[in-house]
């Protein structure tokens, strides 16, 4: 799944470059091609309907599953009530693990996103301005985690985490942030890179330096405000990745949202399916906001 978001970002990236040729497709077709256009329309409808059905049926099934008792066939909102009232007592389910996992995941989102931004932004800015060679190295290193499967990373992280939890810190799940920072890095890198390409950082730097701005002033008062959209989208993508992460947490034996969902699923699959659906809706909202942000970056660049 890791590869995905990067492609979303590159898609946004390329959209503007490609929009001019595809706009020509929409020029009114000559009459000679009318028959072909009709045929194409049918093909298009068939393909889209079949694939969309495949994609939407499981989501509908999830929704139905949460409101209909699979065994007794009774309809009811018990699962949703349990989530929104915070207690599963009416269904005889202990939901404390879910809240614990949710709390851990939310805390991990904050810490991980902060760590990624603090690590990446200064390095990307300085190498962009001063050393294209180092900038390429930073790009290569930052996107490297995409090519290393998370499960492989866990095998290598095992001994490191054993040392961390025994000798340095603790077994608290918050320390998963070290691994998550690596997992999030490629996605955040791409988001930030899009933003840095869209503002002319070099001109901004030269202008403000020649007007006497110090490096900290330049960084905090000039560059960061100009990059805030891409920083925001880098953060959102990080949140989406952390909220969906299961591999590292489950194999290192820590409980986060996904691990809790899985464990709760063993005792009450309705509540955990409802919660999974909720997490999905949360993801949709995050990525739609990301889409809007990417769009506004694009529009600013084109303007």
């Amino acid at each position, binding site marked *: 799944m890791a590869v995905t978001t990067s492609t979303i970002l590159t898609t946004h990236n390329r959209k503007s470059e490609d929009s001019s040729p595809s706009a020509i497709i*929409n020029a009114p077709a000559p009459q000679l091609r009318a028959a072909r256009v009709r045929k194409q329309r049918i093909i298009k409808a068939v393909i889209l309907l079949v694939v969309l059905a*495949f994609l939407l049926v499981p989501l509908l099934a999830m929704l139905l599953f949460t409101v209909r008792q699979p065994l007794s066939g009774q309809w009811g909102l018990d699962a949703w009530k349990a989530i929104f009232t915070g207690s599963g007592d009416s269904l005889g389910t202990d939901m404390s693990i879910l809240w614990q996992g949710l709390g851990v995941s939310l805390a991990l989102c904050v810490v991980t996103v902060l760590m990624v931004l603090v690590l990446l932004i200064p390095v990307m800015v300085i190498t962009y301005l001063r050393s294209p060679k180092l900038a390429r190295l930073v790009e290569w290193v930052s996107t490297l985690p995409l090519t290393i499967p*998370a499960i492989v990373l866990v095998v290598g992280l095992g001994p*490191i985490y054993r040392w961390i939890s025994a000798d340095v810190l603790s077994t608290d799940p918050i320390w998963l942030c070290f691994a998550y920072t690596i997992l999030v890095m490629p996605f955040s890198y791409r988001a930030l890179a899009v933003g840095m390409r869209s503002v002319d950082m070099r001109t901004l730097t030269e202008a403000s330096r020649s007007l006497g701005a110090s490096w900290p002033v330049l*960084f905090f008062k000039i560059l960061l405000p100009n990059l805030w959209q891409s920083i925001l989208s880098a953060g959102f993508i990080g949140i989406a990745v952390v909220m969906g992460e299961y591999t590292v947490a489950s194999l290192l034996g820590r409980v986060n949202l996904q691990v809790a969902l899985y464990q709760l699923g063993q005792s009450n699959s309705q509540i955990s399916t409802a919660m999974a*659906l909720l997490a999905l809706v949360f993801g949709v909202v995050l990525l739609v906001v990301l889409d809007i942000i990417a769009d506004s970056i694009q529009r600013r660049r084109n303007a």
Partner: protein
Amino acid sequence: MSSISANNGRPLERAVRSRAMSPARRRSLGTAAVTIPFFSYVAAFLILPTGIVIVGAFLSPTNAFTLDNFSKLTQANTLESFCTSILVSILSAVIGAIAGALVAYALVIGAKPDGVIRRIIVALCSVLAQFGGVMLAFAFIATIGINGVVTMMLQQFFHITVSPNWLSSLPGLITVYCYFQIPLMIITFLPAMDSIRPQWREASESLGANSWQYWTSVACPILLPRFISATLLLFANSFSAYATAAALFSQRSIIVPLMIQGAIRNEMDPGQQGFAQVLAFAMIVVVAVVMVLSHAFEKSFAKWQ
């Protein structure tokens, strides 16, 4: 950045030092100082773990160099799970690539690039391609699990009984994997479809080519490298997928990531740690080869953009 300029030596010393250090050198030292935290972090949590896997694959339990671990790779059940992994990845990648490319084609023909349908589908796909792991397993259990909605509808209306084990069979696993492969293909391949210029079609038509000739000798040869590179990406994606399978199968280790999970959990047996590392090492090799190939194809497509 300010670490160099903010040195607090005495005036004379400072003067001497600034004369000794040329501005260029100071700049490069400043750059280095800023990059150090980043590179040391990556070294600790990315390079070191990968190194542990690679080195560990060649170490015996007593930390001596050995190739014994690799002999476990050729054991029947290890080979079998590698074959299953590769088979599932190939099939789900090919099905996902073809279906995704068709959708990308359908989205490009006769639609505005910013059309509503296209935007909705792209947004949905971005989410679904992310929609991995436990939640995906739940979705399919709710659909075609024992008490799934589709299972019950098939039973009620068509009297077809879905085997309760279908989800944990290979066709079931491939179907589940397609659920994130198709959206991933759509968002990866759409830009390639967009870059096909309508002028190429007009040019080939004015030279007398029909639709078939246009597709076989113009569009497909141009799109093919990108299509192959995207398919390889999907292969790597499903080859490294772990969470979905882990949530669907509680006991059997039919694919490599599940085998690694088994080896990690068996920490009592010291030989198992080396085994996990060998399996992980083999995964790195497979994924690395696939990614290098993918990049090569990507490059040969790039000249058309």
